């Protein structure tokens, strides 16, 4: 249970970290 929750948190952390990098890389707002 704890391991699954920890994995979820880790995944979310990695997602947000990569999103930040990707936004910096490609700043254009597509409408």
């Amino acid at each position: 249970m704890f391991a699954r929750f920890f994995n979820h948190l880790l995944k979310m952390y990695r997602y947000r970290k990569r999103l930040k990098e990707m936004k910096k890389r490609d700043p254009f707002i597509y409408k």
Partner: protein
Amino acid sequence: MINDPEIDNLKKKNPQNAKNTNDILYFSNMYNKHSLNKNYPLPGKHEFLNEPERKQSKKDWPQFFYHINEQGFRDQLPEQDDKNIIGFFGCSITFGEGLDSKDNFPMLLSNDLGMSCLNLGQPGLSAENVAVIFEAAANIWDMKIAVVTIPVWSRFMYMESSGYLNTIIPSYAQAPGESEDVRKAVMMNFSDNHLMYAFVRSVNSIINVARSKGIKLVFGTWHEEAQQILRDVFGYEAPNLHNDYTLTTARDNSHPHPDSCYKYYLSLKEQIDKEGFV
């Protein structure tokens, strides 16, 4: 067995099958009505591409219009028997989002060279989408020169179950649905290496098509990492469209200012004058 509608869609989207001006329609944002393109306008004259652009635009900018042709691209396409064509390929920056056509580099450069302008830029495209459009265009028009302003490597082409060609922009969430699920999956699971290699293969495809058709090819870019790959992997020094977005932008408060596009036009002209083709 694959069913007939799927085969028919693959035939339409196979750039080798593009023969007539109307065939370029299948690669346009207007035709590919996936969630990212839901606001793309129909043929005609438009002050703004859509409501979100109107809302975020500068109010004091001189008025201009987008002319969307029947194939979903900007301005008039040259005739197929025209032998003096310069083609422009890329994303929103080539399309000229937030800019009057006369202020963007395709019009400036084609007027300067006295050539017919074929602008096949479309908002949001990845390098792979650009490569597919370039291949289709090379089968339709007899281009003397092509200027490919290659986008950042992180964008990714994806064909939805509906058959529509979409671009996955990792940093840009789409409406809930298939492409948004794929975007999240790409973000979570696809390595940078995979995306960069897809970019490299797309650049290769563009080069191979240009060589087979005898088109003089110039690469440019608006991204330093794309420029780095072109330099270090392909040995090609591509002009870069620099714009300090913290200081100045186009009407839409997002894309490069006309001054930056003018400088880019000058650097492309210099590249052509010194025969800096790929």
